[in-house]
């Protein structure tokens, strides 16, 4: 049985350019954030699956900064797999992000071991 390190496995996949989500083999249920066991059932028969990357903006805010530092977007994204995560939507002004907007995941490599998952409008 391979050992599962939820946080570092997730980040390692991102660093490799892969957005992976966990799922229970028994019931096929996805969940986020990564854990050692499925919430509710406690199932540990977990596998990592490539995420579709598709989602919809569930909510959005703009964190205001003192000019000239730019404001930035913080959003909650509902993924097609039925889970929700915090992220940000890029490629448009932070205040132009709309609830209900369809988005697609993009991995941004900040440094060697520090890739970040963001979203862009579809």
């Amino acid at each position, binding site marked *: 049985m391979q050992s599962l390190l939820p946080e570092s496995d997730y980040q390692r996949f991102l660093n490799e350019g892969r957005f992976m989500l966990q799922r229970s083999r028994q019931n096929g249920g996805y969940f986020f954030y990564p854990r050692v066991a499925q919430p509710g059932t406690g199932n540990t028969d977990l596998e990592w699956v490539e995420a579709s990357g598709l989602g919809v903006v569930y909510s959005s805010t703009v964190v205001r900064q003192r000019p000239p530092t730019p404001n930035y977007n913080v959003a*909650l994204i509902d993924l097609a797999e039925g889970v*929700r995560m915090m992220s940000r939507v890029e490629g448009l002004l932070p*205040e132009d992000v709309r*609830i209900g907007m369809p988005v697609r995941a993009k991995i941004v490599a900040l440094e060697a071991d520090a890739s970040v998952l963001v979203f862009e409008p579809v």
Partner: protein
Amino acid sequence: MNQSLRGQTAIVAGATFGMGEAPGLSSMDLAASASVRALAQVGLTPADVDGLFVSVPDDMLSGLTFAEYLGIHPRFTDNNRTGGSAFQIYAHTAAMALACGQIDVALIAYGSNQKSASGKLVQSSRPSPWETPYRPMNPVSSYALAAARHMHQYGTTREQLAEVAVAARKWAQLNPDAYMRDDLSIDDVLGARMVSDPLTVRDCCLVTDGAAAVVMVRADRARDLAKRPAYLLGAGSATTHREIASMEDLTVTAARESGQRAYAMAGVGPKDIDVVMLYDAFTINPILFLEDLGFCPKGEGGRFVSGGAIAPGGQLAVNTNGGGLSCVHPGMYGLFTMVEATQQLMGQCGARQVADARLAIAHGNGGVLSSQATVILGTEETL
């Protein structure tokens, strides 16, 4: 044995201290000042306390520290970390311990010098790795996400959020202990500096120092100690998440469950309540809690608070001390709702006194809408 807690215990004293700015005093100094003040109201001293319930934001072992400060050795000590809802949960725990004779005198206390010590809200937990890359300004950004979703789903407007702030300020103007008492209009709120859309700085709670304490005993002793005890009729709590991305529906809080549990124990409903104290960390909170505690249907909270409905002279007396928005907010505000509810039922509120106040709700919120806890208090006539 399946006996209800209803009416078995009462708050006999409530006090605050250092609300606003209290430089040079530690959180413990403040909590102790409020505590001895409350105990003195009923002729008791720290040595009489055998159940100690305390939360202080900057000390993870505050139960031990506070017992040491007060020079006491309690039979029962609790230091719960559900955020601002801790105090309502303490009232429930204290009632259980009192009712079955495990303790005789409960002291619930809080103190924080966050304003004088650091000038901002103290963060007392490890930041989430699932949030850190996106740098939300917590807690405000999480509440902003909830407000944005409510606006999207139910058409709630920024003006309606502003009504909550304006009402709180009007109550604060009747309270000599409130920190902010200047006139505040809806336009003032809309024109204030935006922090995390849609919340401006006037949609956010204050950052102040402050402390509070209440004393609880069993009902039979309550009558000997206080003229008008505030009997605990109902209590209930519920938690749903820790970080905002895990909240199933940002427009529905666990106040629905905590309220149902408290109402069921008390045998009353929203229409019976005279004074409604709701932890107003942000203007969206009273809107959500008024819905989830059954004062209006889900989605109608914005319309409900419009036109001064929760301001002095309105339809429902909400946050009569001025709330976290205008009275005091040292970080974990829940205990202040209980002190104000108690003082209203005791008839001690002067210019802001709600006439014939018999039943009060004190509702606490912790984290980012994460933990909800409701306490219902009533006068002797309601037993």
